C-alpha cells in the first residue's frame, strides 16, 4: 500500500468509527499535538502505553502533598539517596545512582540506601561501596517504609523484615543528611507505597531537606502527559466524545476499551520502538510504528514512521534534565513523522464531522 493509499484508508476507517481510540502515543510533542487535535476532531479517546505507572505517580500527587526535585539538582546537590524497590537500569539510574555524569572532581561522599531492591540489585549497583542494601524482597517494602517512617518520627514499631538496630541507623542517617532524595519507579511499587515514601520525605523536611525523584517510563510518557495537560487540562485516559475533555482513568483505559469491544477503531502509535498493541481481539487498527513491529493481528493500515530525534528533529522529554528539549535528527531520513501522518489523516477526513458519536 502506498502512503497516499494508507492515509486514505486510515481516514476512511476513522470516519466510519463510532468510538475511535488513539493509543500507544509513543511519539514526540508534535505527534502528540496532532493526535490530541485529531481526537478532539473525531471524539476519540486517548491513552499512552505506559499510563499505568505514570498515573500511579500522579494519583499520589493529586491526592496528597509531594516534594519533588530535578535530576540535575539531585546530581549536584544531594548527599543522600533513598532508593525504594526495584529500579530500571536506565540512563537516569546510571546518571543519578552510579554517577555517570557526575564530574570526578566532585567526589563528595554520596550515601545511598536501597530498600528492598529485589534480586538484581547487586548487578545494578555495580559493586559501588557507597550503597547500603536494606531488606531484599520487594514485597517487604510497604512494611519496611512504614516502620522507617515511624522511627523517623520516634514512634514505636512492631517487628519487620530487618533488625531494629539497622532501622535505627537508617533513620538516624536520613535525619542527618543535608539534602536527600528518594527515588523509585512506579512500574514496580503501588500507589500506597509511593504515598508512604512521599510521606516519609515530608516528615524528614521537619528536620532537614529531603525531596523525591521518580524514575519515569520511556516512550516520552512524561512529555505526552505534559502536552495532554496544557492542551486539555487533564492527563491521558481522556475521551472527547462529550465535546469536552472527559478524564476517567477506568473508562478510557485503552486495554479495557479494546478488550470490551467499546472501541471500533484504534490508531496505535509507537514511533520510538516497533511496539505492537498488547491486546488479542483487536478492532480494526491503524498502526503508526517504527519499522518491524510484530503484530498478533495484522493492522488494516500500517504506516512506518520515523523515530523522533533520529529520522527527524523532535521535542521530547529528556530524562537527564527532567524536562522537554528540542533535538536535531541524528540520522535524517525521509521517513514520515507521526505528526505529519496524523495531520494528513485528519485532513483527509470528510468535513461534515462524520465519525463523531
Amino acid at each position, binding site marked *: 500500500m502506498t502512503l497516499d493509499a494508507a492515509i486514505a484508508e486510515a481516514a476512511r476507517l476513522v470516519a466510519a468509527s463510532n468510538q475511535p481510540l488513539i493509543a500507544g502515543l509513543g511519539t514526540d510533542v508534535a505527534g502528540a499535538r496532532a493526535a490530541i487535535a485529531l481526537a478532539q476532531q473525531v471524539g476519540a479517546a486517548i491513552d499512552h502505553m505506559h499510563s499505568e505507572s505514570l498515573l500511579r505517580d500522579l494519583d499520589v500527587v493529586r491526592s496528597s502533598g509531594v516534594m519533588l526535585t530535578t535530576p540535575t539538582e539531585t546530581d549536584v546537590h544531594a548527599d543522600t539517596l533513598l532508593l525504594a524497590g526495584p529500579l530500571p537500569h536506565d540512563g537516569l539510574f546510571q546518571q543519578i545512582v552510579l554517577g555517570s555524569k557526575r564530574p570526578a572532581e566532585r567526589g563528595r561522599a554520596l550515601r545511598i540506601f536501597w530498600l528492598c531492591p529485589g534480586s538484581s540489585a547487586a548487578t545494578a549497583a555495580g559493586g559501588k561501596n557507597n550503597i547500603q542494601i536494606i531488606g531484599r524482597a520487594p514485597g517487604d517494602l510497604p512494611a519496611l517504609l512504614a516502620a522507617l517512617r515511624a522511627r523517623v518520627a520516634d514512634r514505636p514499631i512492631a517487628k519487620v523484615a530487618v533488625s531494629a538496630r539497622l532501622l535505627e541507623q537508617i533513620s538516624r542517617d536520613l535525619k542527618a543528611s543535608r539534602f536527600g532524595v528518594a527515588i523509585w519507579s512506579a512500574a514496580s511499587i503501588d500507589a500506597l507505597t509511593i504515598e508512604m515514601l512521599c510521606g516519609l520525605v515530608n516528615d524528614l523536611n521537619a528536620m532537614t531537606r529531603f525531596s523525591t525523584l521518580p524514575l519515569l517510563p520511556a516512550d516520552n510518557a512524561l512529555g505526552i502527559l505534559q502536552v495532554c495537560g*496544557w492542551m486539555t*487540562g487533564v492527563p491521558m485516559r481522556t475521551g472527547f466524545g462529550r465535546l469536552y475533555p472527559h478524564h476517567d482513568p477506568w473508562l478510557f483505559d485503552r486495554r479495557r476499551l479494546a478488550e470490551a469491544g467499546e472501541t471500533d477503531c484504534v490508531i496505535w502509535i509507537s514511533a520510538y520502538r516497533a511496539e505492537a498493541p498488547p491486546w488479542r481481539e483487536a478492532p480494526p487498527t491503524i498502526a503508526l510504528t517504527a519499522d518491524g513491529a510484530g503484530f498478533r493481528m495484522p493492522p488494516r493500515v500500517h504506516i512506518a514512521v520515523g523515530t523522533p530525534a533520529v529520522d527527524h528533529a523532535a521535542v521530547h522529554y529528556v530524562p537527564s534534565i527532567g524536562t522537554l528539549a528540542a533535538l536535531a535528527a541524528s540520522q535524517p531520513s525521509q521517513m514520515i513523522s507521526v505528526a505529519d501522518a496524523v495531520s494528513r489523516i485528519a485532513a483527509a477526513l470528510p468535513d461534515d464531522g462524520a465519525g463523531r458519536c
Partner: protein
Amino acid sequence: MLTHLVGGRVIDPANGRDAVGDVWWRDGRIIDAPSETRTEATYDATGKIVMAGAIDIHSHIAGWNVNTARLLLPEYHRAAAQRPAATPLSYAGWSTFETGCRYAAMGFTTVVEPAVSPHYALHAHLELADIPIIDKATLAVLGNDDYLLTLLHAQESESAIEDYVAWILDMTRSIGIKVVNAGGAAAFKENIRQFSLDDVVPNYGVSSRKIVNALQHAVNNLGVPHPLHVHCNNLGLAGNVATALDTIAAAEGLPLHLAHLQFYGYGTEGERGFSSAAARLAEAVNAASDVTVDVGQVMFGPTVTISSDVLRQFNARGRARPRKWLILDGDANGAGVVPYDYRRSDFYNAVQWAVGLELFLLINDPERVFFTTDHPNGAPFTSYPEIFALLMSRDLRAKWIADLPRAAMAMTTLPSITREYTLPEIAAMTRAAPARLFGLTDRGHLGTGAVADVAVYEDDADRAKMFRAAALVFKDGERVVRDGEITRRTWGRALTVAPPRDRATDRRMKDYYDARYGVSDELFKVPAHALGRPEPFGVVPCRP
C-alpha cells in the same frame, strides 16, 4: 484590507484622545483617515467604547508550574464542565486554548507570563505557542541560580553579570528578568526557613539585597525596556510591609517593578496581629517615581497558588485547600503549587481583598499601578470584569464591604475611600502604561502605526458585564471576537528582547554546563522551529 470602525467613543490616553470618532486600519496597522475610502470592512461602534487591546503584565498562563497545577487539580476541570456558575476557577479556562480565547473575549490582546525558570523555557514557549489569538511574552527568573550567585560571590564585574543576563534572555527568549525571593530558594536548599532582604545565602555569602541590586543594574545597563521585575521576600506574612518598603528604598532611583504588591501590604495591628498597611505602602509608591507596581488583587473563591517562591509555598503548604500540594526544589528557583480557597467569611482573606483595592485607589498615578490578580494566585483572570466594576463604583464596594467581616474591614481604610476610576484611567492602567512598561511602542494605543489590536465594548452601566464580553475585538486587524464569542482563531507571537552581548559568553556557558551538569546547554534552548508555528517570535527593541 482597509477597515473602518465608525463612531465610537475612542479612549486612547497615550495619544490624549477621548472623543467620539473613527479608527482606521489597513491590514494589521492603524492608519490616519485615508483620502480614498474603498473600505472593505466597516463596523459601527456608535454608542460604544473603543480602546486599544488590553495588556496583562503578570499572569501565570503557561509552563511547568501552571501545567503542574492543572494536573494536580482534575476536580477543577470536572467542575468546569458541569457547574461553571458555582466555581470561580472553572471560569479560568484551564487549557492553553481556552486561556487565549477567554482573554480575547475580554478585549485582552497581549499577556506576559511572568515566571519562567530558564531550564523550563522550551516547555513554557510550547504552551504559549498553543495559546491562540493573543501575543505573549515571558520573564526569565534569576536570582537563585548557581551561576549568578557564584559571580556575585567572586565579586565579578558588572559586565560579567550583564553578559550572563543577556545570554539568559537569548536562551529563554524572554522579554525581561524577574527575581523571585532573591536567594531564598537557594537558602531553602540549605534548610533555611525564613529569608529577608539582608539575609545571606549560605555557601555564596551574598545577601538578597545584593542579588536584587545586581540584577536591577544589569537589566538597566543592557537597555532592556522592562525594569527588573521583583517578587520580594516574605510574601504573605503579617508585618511584611517593612520588606516592601525596604525594597522600594533599595531601588535607589533606578527603575524597579514590584509584583503583586497586595501580598506585601500587611501590618501587625489588631487582635489577630494582621492588618492592612496599604496606606503606608501606597504613600511610599507615590513618593518613589521610578517604582512601578502591580496589585495581585484577591477575589473570593477557590483557586490555586503557583509560585517560583519555593520557600514561601513550602511554608504555606499546611494551609492548602484542598489538602494537597507540590513543592519542586528546582535547578534554581523551583516552584510550589498550593491550592487555596479565599473565603468571604475569613478575616485574613477579607483583609487581603481590601488591601488590593486600597492600593489601586490610593496610588495616585494609574500609569504606575498595574491591573493584575497575579492569576491565578489572587484570583483567576476571568474575575477581572468584577474588579473593574469595583474600582469604578464606590457604591458597589460599599455593598461588598457590608457583606464582609466587620473586624476585617476595621483593619483597612477601604470603607473611607471615595475615589472611582474613570474609563480613561482604566485605559491608561491596562493599555497605555503596560505598553510603556515593556517598551511596546507598537501597542497599547490607537495612534498611526500601532498594531491594530482594538477592543470595542458596550457602554453598559454594569461595568462587569461590559468588560466580560467585548462587543468586538480585532487582533492584528482581524476580527476575532463578536459579542464575547470567538469568531476566528489566530496565532499570536511571543515578544522577546535581544540586547547585544559578548559572544565569548557562549563558550563560558557551554563549559559551565559541561562542568556542573554534565550536559550540553543546547538542551535548554528554544529554537523557533521547535514551536510548530510559522512566526513564533517578535523582537522588541532595547534602548540604545
